[in-house]
């Protein structure tokens, strides 16, 4: 039987994390060796935390080597629990307290302009993520986590859901594909997740299965309230099935496209102009609108080029997308600004709606500005722009009531 395991990370570039080496022994009691950047300030409390953890799992004899680069307590807890559960079988979960302010729900139609990916096994990026005001944060268990680290990432993501304040961002988790993904759900769903991203979707059946599994877990844990889904379409087949996926279950609120995998599937290069994915993107937008869900564009991967990001986001908006993924916090404001209505656009909308109201009052059947006739869909679109602007506090004199 295996009796030694190592979890977590260390190294010159590792921050806010720790590496834990746990060796179970048959005697000799508990020996803890702590190397820590913050030993002078927190040495005793770190050692005590580990003792408490070992005691919780009923471990009486072990050697623990901890190499700490400034991990917060919830990270230490996740690393230890992952180590323990690699060596012994137990049903107990060593949970840090759930912050009260982390209990909030989401809404079907909330904005999803920007959603920030956080690699699920990298604690240093988690703590301040919400401060950059993304519409959503995604704790990612899928592609950003190395296969060997999948197990420990689940504990870290779970603890982050309980302990990290994301300042009102929609709380999202991207699970793995298939069985691994269903297991992921067990770990995260009891800890107030708003939305699950399902990667590499190619059929409606896939989403129905995830939704069924999720419902079971929520029921078992007596959790009520909505859990939303955002399927990610990343293949030629997925694109063909976009509408089926978007309308698979009622709690799908958005569908996203993943262009790295999609272009790979097509066997073409992904370019900044994106001509190679024009069909897929338009198909996705159309399917989403038909199913009354939000179409969300892929991430933009050059994090240093804010101008190109701005241009890409503007194009994305012009296609009908209602958001993009972010892989760097500095992308958030650029994307938000690009998806918000422009000044001219807003002024025009205000003018149109004003003309519409006046026509209504006068009992006129036809709306016109000057000599130009305004069709009902134009009025409808103008109203949507104003609604958006109101929610974003872009109309002078309006205040935010949320």
């Amino acid at each position, binding site marked *: 039987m295996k009796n030694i395991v190592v979890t977590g990370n260390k190294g010159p570039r590792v921050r806010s994390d720790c590496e834990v080496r746990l060796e179970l022994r048959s005697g000799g009691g508990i020996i803890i060796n702590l190397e820590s*950047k913050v030993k*002078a*300030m*927190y040495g005793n409390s770190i050692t005590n935390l580990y003792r408490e953890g070992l005691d919780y799992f009923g471990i009486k004899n072990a050697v623990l080597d901890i190499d700490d680069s400034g991990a917060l307590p919830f990270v230490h807890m996740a690393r230890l629990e992952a180590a323990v559960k690699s060596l012994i079988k137990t049903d107990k979960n060593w949970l840090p307290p759930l912050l009260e302010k982390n209990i909030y729900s989401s809404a079907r139609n909330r904005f999803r302009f920007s959603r920030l990916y956080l690699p699920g096994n990298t604690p240093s990026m988690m703590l301040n993520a919400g*401060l950059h005001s993304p519409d959503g944060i995604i704790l990612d268990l899928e592609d950003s986590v190395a296969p060997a680290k999948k197990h420990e990432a689940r504990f870290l993501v779970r603890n982050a859901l309980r302990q990290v304040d994301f300042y009102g961002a929609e709380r999202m988790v991207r699970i793995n594909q298939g069985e691994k993904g269903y297991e992921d759900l067990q770990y995260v769903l009891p800890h107030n997740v708003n939305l699950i991203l399902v990667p590499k979707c190619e059929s409606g059946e896939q989403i129905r299965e995830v939704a069924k599994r999720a419902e079971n877990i929520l029921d078992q844990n007596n959790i009520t309230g909505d859990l939303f889904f955002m399927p990610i379409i990343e293949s030629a087949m997925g694109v063909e099935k976009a509408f089926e996926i978007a309308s698979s279950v009622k709690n799908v609120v958005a569908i996203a496209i993943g262009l790295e995998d999609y272009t790979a599937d097509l066997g073409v290069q992904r370019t900044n102009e994106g001509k190679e994915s024009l069909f897929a993107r338009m198909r996705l937008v159309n399917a989403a609108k038909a199913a009354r869900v939000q179409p969300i564009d892929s991430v933009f991967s050059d994090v240093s080029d804010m101008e190109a990001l701005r241009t890409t986001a503007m194009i994305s908006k012009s296609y009908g997308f209602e958001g993009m993924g972010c892989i760097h916090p*500095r992308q958030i404001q650029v994307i938000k600004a690009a998806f918000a209505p422009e000044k001219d656009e807003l002024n025009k909308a205000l003018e149109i709606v004003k003309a519409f109201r006046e026509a209504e009052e006068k009992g006129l059947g036809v709306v016109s500005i000057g000599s130009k006739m305004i069709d009902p869909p134009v009025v409808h679109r103008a109203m949507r722009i104003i609604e958006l602007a109101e929610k974003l506090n872009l109309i002078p004199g309006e205040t935010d009531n949320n």
Partner: protein
Amino acid sequence: MANKMVKNAAGREVVTEINGQKAVPYQGVGKYKPEGRKYAPWISSCADYPDNGDKRVSNIREALVKAGIKDGMTISTHHHFRNGDLLANMLFDAVHELGIKDIRWFPSASFPCHEHLIQYLDDGTIHHIEGSMNGPLGRYVSEGKMKGIAVLRSHGGRYQAVQDGEVEIDIAVIGAPMADPFGNANGLEGDSACGLLGFALADSQYANRVIVVTDNMVPFPCIPWQIQGNYVDFTVEVPRLGLPEEIVSGTTKITKSPDRLLLAELTAKFCDAAGILKDGFSFQSGAGGTSLAVGEFFRTLMKEKGIKARFARGGSNKYLVSMLEEGLVDYILDGQTFDLDGVRSMRENPRHVWTSPFTSYNYHGKGNFAPLVDVAILGATEVDINFNANVVTHSDGYLLHGIGGWQNCLFSKTVILPLPLVRDRVPVIIDRVTTLCGPGELIDVIVTERGIAINPLRKDLMDAVRNSDLPVKTIQELKEEAERLCGRPEKLYNDGKVIAAIKWVDGTVIDVVRKVKV
């Protein structure tokens, strides 16, 4: 060896004697004003110097011998070459070869490249260091290995110590990227070009013997003469003074860290909301990544508002130079040049002016420039709930940074410290700073990613930003938030021996640093 400790006006237990010299405890901001005449060097007569103006000697060792080097003397050097300095190492190799002991080394700052000198601290060539320490030397001193007590001063405080006679420099060794045989020197041209030589100005004027060392000797006259040859005793040619890539190094890059950029953005927004960013304002520009980023946010805001700054004071680099060249800043009053764009601009642009700690910071001048600056954005390792700040030690007690011009810049009209509230579990706002370097009454605003605290003494700033959407909190609230995230730090009580004294700008002792427990 009993050194009486007293509590100074800031409530810190400090020494009353440093390496056998009497020390005055800190008395409060602007309270200590020594009387009498300034220190003056020996009278020299031109009859004693060569008529042809050629003061060259063959090497550093010979220059030291001719300067009359003896055990226990004070030798000064300067940090214009920063982490690319080769001179201090060469110098002490020569001192060591001569068998000289117990030197008081008085650098304007030391860097990791001076790790080479640890052997000379070990063998007694150097008795102790009086100057800012960055990195390995700080670690060495922190662990109690140096014979004497280190003394840390600000750039202005160094000038003060020279002028009021607290430090008598026996031999000043000035590295010059360009010099003539007479001793005129500047930092503008040559392989080791570093911009200006302001930190050596006091030494040239007050040291008993002055040696100029260059790797770029030109025929008389060396123009401009930032250092005047009339103060210089000997000149020496060496093949190489510094490593150019380290002199004008990449330390001056704008941070890419999203969290630091957020801090910088908040800081710039604060300055805007507080009404600081108005036409004709002035600012202190630093070399740290966050400080540089603030400058870039300033640039954007200034363009939007159509305003320009009258002057920027401090370190220059390509970002600041481009603001000068775009007409966003009328003048750069440069104290330290950080990159080749800065050096070029200083050489070519009459609006890019070289300054010295005398003009900018000196306590014994009839005023200085620091209080004329509208806003200074500075760093710190810790701040406490009374806005006191630490800039030299880490929370674990290690002395790892110098003071630089930091204390002097606290006299700016508004002082802002943008600091991450939590840095890998290290909370930046605590009950009491490990080492006091700057009194809270001079520190106006702490900007963190989780909120902005304004010193209650600055009601005007509070009123100015009241109606903004900035996240203003009390410093107590910020401290509690940091503790919620990190946990409450364990109390560190250190009664180890005193290894360093921290001077205030007027020469009084504001705090001491004790040996770390290893």
